[in-house]
């Protein structure tokens, strides 16, 4: 399967010459199966460009939302295939204890925040993320709620070629005492990411930022690397870059984290436009 990063930024889009290397668009990742099945992970601003590259002949696209914070849904209304009556679009995401996924999304996709009503889109179906695994084409998808404010899920996408785990907004280190990690049963997201071939994981903060933002639902590079080591991931893509971090800062943070953690797995920068082939190695 092929994984393409269309948006890697967290919190808010941060376009500009100083962020051109890693990109300024917020979370959007395409996972494409050998048979052409497309999963889109999150609908941040990066999904607009993703939509431009989708063939109009494709019959169906599934969008898997981790949660409904603005940086993960802001691009949804600008995703071209939503307006193509020839394409079925299925959106999966967490409902809340009182509102359906559709009702929650409609808070954004309706006037005055957006001119089009969700209900007016031609072939859209919303699915609350089920507690049991589900299949989309060749993909077997597992979900679980993970540590982030509000209902937030992580995804584990299994195919014959390999496993991709996507935990874009995740604070597994919340509550660690003296940096000591608990047993695996007590680590948020452990089963989702276990032995993933490719782990796309939150690495928003520096150590200093994390001290100020404890409980906000994000990780440092070191937390992401320690999590990856515990779950036995083969490769990690640090993701959900802080909007205040320019390219030079992100290069430094990545190099510094590799130097400090000496990871026993592959580390690839989360750069917009990067393509990963899972199952070819």
């Amino acid at each position, binding site marked *: 399967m092929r994984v393409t990063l269309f948006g890697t930024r967290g919190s808010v889009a941060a376009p500009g010459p100083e962020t051109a290397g890693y990109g300024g668009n917020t979370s959007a990742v395409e996972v494409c199966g050998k048979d052409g099945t497309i999963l889109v992970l999150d609908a941040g601003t990066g999904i607009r460009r993703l939509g431009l590259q989708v063939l109009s002949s494709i019959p169906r696209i599934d969008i898997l939302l981790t949660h409904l914070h603005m940086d993960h849904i802001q691009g949804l209304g600008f995703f071209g295939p939503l307006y193509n009556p020839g394409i079925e679009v299925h959106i999966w995401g967490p409902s809340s204890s009182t509102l359906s996924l559709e009702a929650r999304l409609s808070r954004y996709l309706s006037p005055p925040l957006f001119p089009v009503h969700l209900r007016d889109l031609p072939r859209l179906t919303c699915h609350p993320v089920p507690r049991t695994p589900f299949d989309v084409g060749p993909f077997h998808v597992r979900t679980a709620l993970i540590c982030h404010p509000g209902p937030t899920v992580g995804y584990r996408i299994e195919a014959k070629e390999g496993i991709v785990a996507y935990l874009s907004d995740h604070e597994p280190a919340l509550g660690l*005492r003296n940096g000591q990690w608990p047993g695996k049963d007590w680590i948020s997201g452990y089963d989702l990411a276990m032995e993933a071939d490719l782990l796309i994981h939150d690495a928003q903060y520096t150590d200093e930022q994390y001290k100020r933002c404890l409980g906000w639902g994000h990780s440092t590079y070191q937390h992401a690397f320690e999590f990856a080591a515990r779950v036995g991931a083969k490769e990690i893509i640090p993701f959900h870059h802080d909007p205040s971090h320019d390219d030079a800062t992100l290069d430094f943070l990545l190099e510094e984290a590799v130097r400090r953690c000496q990871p026993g797995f592959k580390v690839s920068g989360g750069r917009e436009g990067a393509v990963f082939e899972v199952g070819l190695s």
Partner: protein
Amino acid sequence: MTHPIQIILTRQLAGYLSVPFFLVDPKGKLLFYNEPAEAVLGRRFDETGVMPAEEWSSIFTVVDDDGRAVPPNDLPLMITLTKRRPAYSRFFIKGLDGVVRHVEVAAIPISGLQDEFLGAAAMFWEVPE
């Protein structure tokens, strides 16, 4: 298998409270109790570890205000587990250290976003004599 996030967060919360706190899964298996609970129960969690409901509900000697033994199924946490509703009681408990303490206990179900039953928690207070 990773516990549901609600259980993980509840344990984290318990670790930062001064209130004795006891956490079980939907079948009543003891998952965790915090340091203040260790003082009431008379043994460190590291020593007792995970144990089934039949074991923890009978390991502590519990009597009511009149000195009558409280059957395990009448303990607040067992009521919460079977009826999936909050429960409260006040009784004397003889901890594993042999000390008898007068305690109040409130138990609550832990239900997920879709009302799925994920476990239960009990909080203890020692009654000032």
